[in-house]
């Protein structure tokens, strides 16, 4: 087992525990940056899709994983991001400005919505976000001049200082653009978590009363978390718009909200890495199902495509399995596996046994 000898408080303040960890992350970024030279166009597009999902996943992770608030309507914020970006570009604003503005607008909208919403707790907030989603969806249809209504609209191609980043004509560039955005947001997010702001999020999540007793303004902290979450999701939405290129309100269905929840829960609540693990899973599983379907068809002649909704069934089964057997998600599983190897052969079977717990009500009557 690796032992780190800490010589200064900076060891704890830094993002990575030592040079090795820093090197691993750097290597990962380099490999990701070199991906266009390693894989074909199809898989590169999928990789860009995964990056966008990771970004949206991080957005939801701030809320669900780090402030303990549930949202069942995050697709609404993807939509707001996408439509704001395209609307601004359509009136001639260059992408480099419209993109951050889209994030900002979504974040502001989220924070404004959050101020009444954060007074509600737990389940009520989840329901309110679901209602908000339905309202946003209807608004998108009603605001036809901006959103193209039911017919939808075309996302203009991205150009920065004369360089084209169109998803179809210059996929490599588009991929690098997504990667740059994701790396930047991840860095900001990681910084947030090691700073007082991030700690106040965790405090609000774990014990509201003591957070208040320590001087943390619950309403403001939650609204900030909501705003940041929506901002990140808005950025993801805007990239998603460009990725899909031609979209209408159906792109942002309630299923997208649920897939996003899947990303954060299966990935591992409370870990940035979890958002990435979840995003990889959610983009990889449909591919695997397609391959599986082909194999089954070849081997047995049974055509599984007559069962529509098989994808959702498999997703649901995975989700149920994780919630029951591994609530810490893929990343939590990995951490446990790592400890097992580090301690080998001393790890005991019961080491990660969950404490038996009972439901305790928060109601007084």
């Amino acid at each position, binding site marked *: 087992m690796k032992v780190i000898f800490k010589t200064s408080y900076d060891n704890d*303040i830094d993002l990575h525990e030592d040079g090795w960890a820093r090197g691993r992350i750097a290597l990962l970024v380099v490999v990701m940056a070199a991906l266009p030279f390693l894989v074909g166009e199809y898989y590169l597009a999928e990789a860009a899709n995964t990056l966008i999902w990771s970004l949206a996943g991080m957005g939801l992770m701030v809320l669900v994983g780090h402030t303990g608030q549930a949202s069942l309507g995050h697709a609404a914020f993807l939509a707001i991001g996408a439509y704001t970006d395209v609307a601004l570009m359509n009136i001639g604003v260059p992408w480099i400005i419209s993109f951050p503005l889209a994030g900002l607008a979504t974040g502001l909208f989220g924070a404004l919505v959050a101020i009444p919403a954060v007074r509600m707790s737990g389940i009520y907030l989840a329901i309110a976000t679901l209602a908000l989603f339905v309202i946003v969806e209807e608004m998108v249809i009603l605001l036809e001049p901006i959103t193209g209504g039911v017919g939808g609209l075309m996302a203009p191609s991205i150009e920065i200082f004369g360089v084209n980043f169109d998803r179809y004509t210059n996929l490599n560039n588009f991929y690098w653009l997504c990667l740059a955005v994701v790396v930047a947001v991840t860095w900001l997010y990681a910084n947030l978590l090691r*700073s007082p702001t991030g700690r106040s999020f*965790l405090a609000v999540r774990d*014990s509201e*009363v003591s957070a*208040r007793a320590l001087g943390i303004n*619950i309403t403001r902290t939650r609204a900030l978390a909501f705003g940041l979450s929506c901002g990140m999701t808005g950025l993801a939405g805007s990239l998603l718009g460009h990725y899909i290129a031609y979209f209408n309100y159906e792109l942002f269905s309630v299923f997208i909200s649920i897939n996003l929840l899947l990303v954060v829960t299966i990935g591992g609540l409370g870990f940035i890495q979890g958002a990435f693990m979840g995003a990889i899973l959610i983009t990889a599983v449909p591919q695997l199902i397609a391959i599986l379907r082909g194999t089954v068809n070849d081997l047995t002649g049974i055509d599984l495509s007559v069962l529509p909704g098989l994808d959702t069934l498999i997703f649901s089964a995975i989700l149920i399995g994780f919630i029951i057997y591994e609530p810490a998600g893929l990343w939590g599983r990995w951490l446990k596996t790592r400890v097992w190897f580090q301690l080998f052969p001393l790890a005991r079977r019961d080491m990660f046994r969950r404490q038996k717990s009972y439901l305790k009500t928060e109601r007084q009557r």
Partner: protein
Amino acid sequence: MSLLEVEDLAIHFGGVKAVDGVSFAVEAGEVFSIIGPNGAGKSTIFNLISRLYKPTRGKIMFDGRDITPLQAHEIAPLGLARTFQNIELFDHSTVLDNLLMGRHTHRSTNWVQDMLFVPAVRRAERAHRRKVEDVIEFLELEAYRDKLIAGLPYGVRKVVEIGRALAVGPKLILLDEPASGLSVEESQEVAYWIEDMRRDMGLTVLMVEHDMSLVTQVSDRVLAVANGQPLAQGSPAEVQSDPRVMAAYLGTEVYT
């Protein structure tokens, strides 16, 4: 002028008068204890002072300022920290992070600076860490620094709870049953810490406690309450020998 003055404090939940007309004053630098049988309203007084409950009537003055109209999160910045009877720690964080969360009122950076992690944030973090290390050293928590709360034994959590309140850097610390559930040795340790807090750190301590030996050992003055009403106030020996207090503990009615 007293550091904390409570005047005619009352809170009624429906028809239940949980606290009814309690007044007392805590002088700077003293250890003041509130005792009373279960359900006497001791913790409710604490929740009123830390503004988690809104009083039905009465006034709370802290450091010359009326804190009755303030909200719960506006109390800690004035220099008033508290612990909870049933341990309210942040279970999924380490001991170190729990203590750092206690430094919230001293934060000097905003969320934009935090996200960019500008040099000021690092400087502030180092300063917070130094303060927190003082607390860790004082309470001898070194061995648990990087441990998650969720896996710690009860006694240690109780100490971390005190540590988090100390990290706030308060003038007045409210300890809600600091020795409940602790062994004799552990509560003796708590007694030493309370004495050190007063002597070395110049803190004022307001405590709710059942353990009479701890109360007698550290308190300058004691207030006894029963059924939400004050019974007696004075030195530990005076209060303990008061017939009304004895009656309240033995459960008989007092006729005066």
